[in-house]
């Protein structure tokens, strides 16, 4: 195996590496078999290069391509959309690999690697993935160098590409900030189906437990002014009305007018940065005063409902109140909806209990208090791993297991209320939030998921009642993890055991928040804001064009200067400059130095012409020859040169022959 043989192989290996990097970045987007097939094809192609086996012919490749399209169609039912497109790109490029012989084909593979990187960027923009993306970009650019120049070593290519990318960074940032963005999309974007994270629109036993295990942030909140106390930090999510005895559901397609409300207490102004949950809920503190965005509906049950699932991070400003009073009576429809009878015959003991409690109480409010008192004193236990409940789940919870978590208690409480004809509904959302001192915000995690109840009380309207707060009051002030003696929380507790780790985690979260706020969410309006800060109020295409051109030219000039510096021959050193000066002085009084003449030969010429100057001139020229060509005296060289320069400067020669 000669060096010439290994060069095309190296180029192929690098092109394959760039492509494989793109494949791996997308492995969680596409079906596993797609990734596996692409990686297998890469491995096979590399092995054929080693054994110089024959590549499949045109017919085989065409058949394979058809099979791939069919497979992707069968899986996604479309070729449009990010996931399907990514899978198709992956497989088609992998097939392309089978006919990769020429340099051109290898360029195509590197291009596929870059395009897969783009697909990954389009899909996930979280900070933790950014280093991976950067590595992939670097890998692709290095592969470009190896493919372009046969015989390029891998390390040299990495160095070159890294340098070029670093030099490119300032312009990339400028372009990012000032390249005109679009207020909308060119064409409708097909969003693929996605795994759902966060609260769903149903509540059944166990659905919250799954969330509690997740440490992912749901959203972050920054208050302008005072933050509400912990027991008021209820973040409203889906409000559930329908109950089948087992699962609570939203009432789909129901649109009432929202009641007029009188807001009591402090208004809380805040900004929420939502993570892309791929859900339509926009979480706001208890009762938001109005919708923050034209695309968001403030429903009659005070939820904020977006028109599209959140696939990108979103921020919004809102004002909320934690106490309100209804100025109108409950509408007939809402009353009917929220006092909907339980499935007949279910939970008979609970129904009986509710009737008893209601009869003893003088009012609905008294009934609520009595029910809460029952829960407080009944020996109920808060646990995230309750025993499974039987056919009458509320009965089972209240009289049998007496152990459950927020979902169970909220569900049971609302069941009791409805059994006594008091309108009540289940509210899911989040409770609490962890203060991040570095970012100055609260981060609300999936593990803060919570469920509580709202009860209609005459004269007050919908009133928040949290039965969990009665069973486990400490839940209001502490996160779920502190309450659980469970294996579930072990890793989180470990993370929190060290102050340093906690601090590091907070820093990381703050970095994520910054990234999401300033980079991911940098869009058309953010760009307008930025331009406004530079005094450009209503930028038109010409202004932007000029600014853009100037920035580009400035940067190009800088880069050209930086890069060009090294391409110029070195400027003459101090010694050469002094020598040139000496020669010019001597030429004024005698013959010029011929181009081929060295210093000593020139000294002879000058001496012949002006014997009177002989000694002085000869000494100087000999000194130059010694400094230039003689053995270097290490420590004193700079000093010697300086001395020579000065004696040249001092030398004054008269034109006339003297003496």
């Amino acid at each position, binding site marked *: 195996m000669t060096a010439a043989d290994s060069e095309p192989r190296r180029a192929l290996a690098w092109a394959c590496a760039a492509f494989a990097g793109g494949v791996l970045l997308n492995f969680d987007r596409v079906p596993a078999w797609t990734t596996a097939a692409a990686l297998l094809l890469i491995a096979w192609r590399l092995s054929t290069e080693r054994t110089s086996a024959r590549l499949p012919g045109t017919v085989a490749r065409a058949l394979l391509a058809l099979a791939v399209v069919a497979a992707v169609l069968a899986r996604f039912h479309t070729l449009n959309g990010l996931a399907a497109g990514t899978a198709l790109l992956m497989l088609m490029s992998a097939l392309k690999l089978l006919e990769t012989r020429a*340099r*051109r084909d290898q*360029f*195509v593979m590197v*291009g596929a690697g*870059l*395009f897969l*990187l*783009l697909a990954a*960027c*389009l899909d996930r*923009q979280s900070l933790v993935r*950014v280093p991976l*993306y950067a590595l992939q*970009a670097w890998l692709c*650019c290095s592969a*470009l*160098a190896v*493919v*372009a*120049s*046969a015989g*390029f070593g891998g390390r040299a290519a990495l160095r*070159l*590409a890294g340098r*070029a*990318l670093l*030099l*490119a*960074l*300032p*312009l*990339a940032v400028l*372009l*990012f900030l000032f*390249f005109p*963005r*679009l207020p909308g*999309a*060119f*064409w409708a*974007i097909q969003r693929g189906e996605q795994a759902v994270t966060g609260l769903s629109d149903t509540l059944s036993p166990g659905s919250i437990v799954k969330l509690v295990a997740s440490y992912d942030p749901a959203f972050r909140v920054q208050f302008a002014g005072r933050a509400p106390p912990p027991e008021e930090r209820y973040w409203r999510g889906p409000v559930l009305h329908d109950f089948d005895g087992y699962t609570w559901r939203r009432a789909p397609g129901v649109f009432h007018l929202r009641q007029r409300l009188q807001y009591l207490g402090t208004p809380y102004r805040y900004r929420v940065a939502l993570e892309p949950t791929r859900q339509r809920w926009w979480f706001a503190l208890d009762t938001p005063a109005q919708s923050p965005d034209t695309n968001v509906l403030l429903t009659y049950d005070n939820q904020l409902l977006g028109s599209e699932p959140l696939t*990108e991070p979103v921020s919004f400003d809102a004002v909320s109140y934690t106490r309100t009073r209804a100025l109108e009576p409950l509408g007939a429809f809402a009353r009917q909806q929220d006092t909907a009878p339980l499935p007949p015959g279910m939970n008979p003991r609970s129904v009986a209990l509710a009737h008893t409690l209601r009869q003893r109480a003088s009012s609905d409010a008294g009934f609520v208090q009595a029910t809460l008192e029952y829960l407080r004193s009944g020996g109920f236990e808060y646990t995230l791993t309750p025993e499974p409940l039987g056919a009458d789940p509320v009965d089972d919870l209240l009289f049998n297991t007496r152990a459950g978590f927020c979902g169970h208690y909220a569900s049971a409480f609302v069941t009791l209320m409805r059994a006594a004809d008091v309108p009540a509904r289940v509210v899911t959302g989040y409770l609490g939030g962890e203060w991040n001192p570095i970012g100055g915000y609260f981060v609300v995690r999936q593990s803060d998921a919570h469920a509580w109840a709202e009860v209609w009380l005459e004269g007050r309207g919908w009133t928040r009642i949290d039965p969990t707060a009665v069973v486990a009051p400490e839940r209001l002030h502490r996160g779920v993890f502190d309450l659980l003696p469970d294996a579930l929380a072990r890793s989180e507790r470990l993370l929190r055991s060290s102050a340093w780790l906690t601090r590091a985690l907070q820093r990381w979260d703050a970095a994520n928040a910054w990234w999401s706020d300033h*980079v*991911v*969410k*940098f*869009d*058309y309006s953010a760009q307008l804001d930025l331009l406004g800060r530079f005094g450009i109020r209503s930028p038109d295409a010409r202004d932007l064009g000029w600014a853009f051109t100037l920035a580009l030219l400035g*940067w*190009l000039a800088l*880069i*050209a200067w930086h*890069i*060009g510096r*090294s*391409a*110029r*021959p*070195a400027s003459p050193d101090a010694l050469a400059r002094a020598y040139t000066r000496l020669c010019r002085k001597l030429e004024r009084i005698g013959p010029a130095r011929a181009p081929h003449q060295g210093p000593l030969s020139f000294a002879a010429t000058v001496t012949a012409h002006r014997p009177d100057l002989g000694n002085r001139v000869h000494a100087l020229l000999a000194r130059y020859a010694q400094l230039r060509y003689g053995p270097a005296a290490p420590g004193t060289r700079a000093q010697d040169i300086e001395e020579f320069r000065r004696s040249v400067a001092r030398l004054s020669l008269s034109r006339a022959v003297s003496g």
Partner: protein
Amino acid sequence: MPARWSPLAPLPVLVRARVAAWMRRRQGLDVLPVTLERRRLYILPTGAGVAFGMLLLLMLIAGLNYGNSLALFLTFSLAAFALVVMQQCHRNLLGIAVISASAPAVFARSTGAVHLTLANPAPLPRSRVEAALPEVAAVAADLPAHERQRLELPLPAARRGIVRIDRLRLATAHPFGLFRAWTWVHTPIEMMIYPRPHGSLPMPAHRGHKSGARARGGSDADEWVGLRPFRDGDSPRQVDWKAYAREAPLLVKEYSPAGSELHLFDFAQLTDPDTEARLAQLARWVVDAEAHGERYGVVLPGVRLGADRGPEHRHRCLAALAVFGIDDRR
């Protein structure tokens, strides 16, 4: 990696010719050594570079459409990367000095070479600088900092005559192959292509005595060989004054020293009807005679080269054979 001779190859021939003529007018004729400065460097994206640009355009559209910041940032980074690459490519050629370019004479049906000396006076190493002659595959070289490099650009020598090259190209696509910077050095290079020595006729013996013309001043033993141009150091007694009086240039009568072999290779004495075959035979004799250290002369219709020997004489003879019957168009 064979590169096309002209980065402008996709253009129609007429346009290409116009551009080449314009560049030549713009740069003027070069006198070596030439340093490649900015004014004469041209740069265009390669095919891969154009494809890369298309890829960027697609990425930009996708990023704008999805309103996806990271995708846009990636696109902008790659676009800026391409601009840096353009600068690096340009710089890889900038400041290189073309010290000399010459082509030694060769025989026909072999491959000659243009010897090109490049120097890199800067502290920056240059990689993969390709030098190319018109329509011939390029030769690539690396130039370490402050070093010279001699390249041999192969040049096929098919038929006898003079190959004139009016320009050569220096180009580079280093380091990423997205751009190609190039320059044309308009320096005339001539490569003499001797006829291929071929033929098996025995070398003719001297024919000096046949002419019977003895010049005064030559010794009896010396053979009169012919006339040759006057050179410094020639004895005035050997000058053909009569011819000079007839306003001919100063010519010297040549004699071969008695005793040494003297051959006069006469085109007219060969009988082969094919001119090329005759010239090939003459070339064969010249080469052999020189190799044996003998004195020889060549007589062609209109040309007469007196007896002599040595590399210069050999070149004169072979060159006369090479250009015989070929009118010099330039």
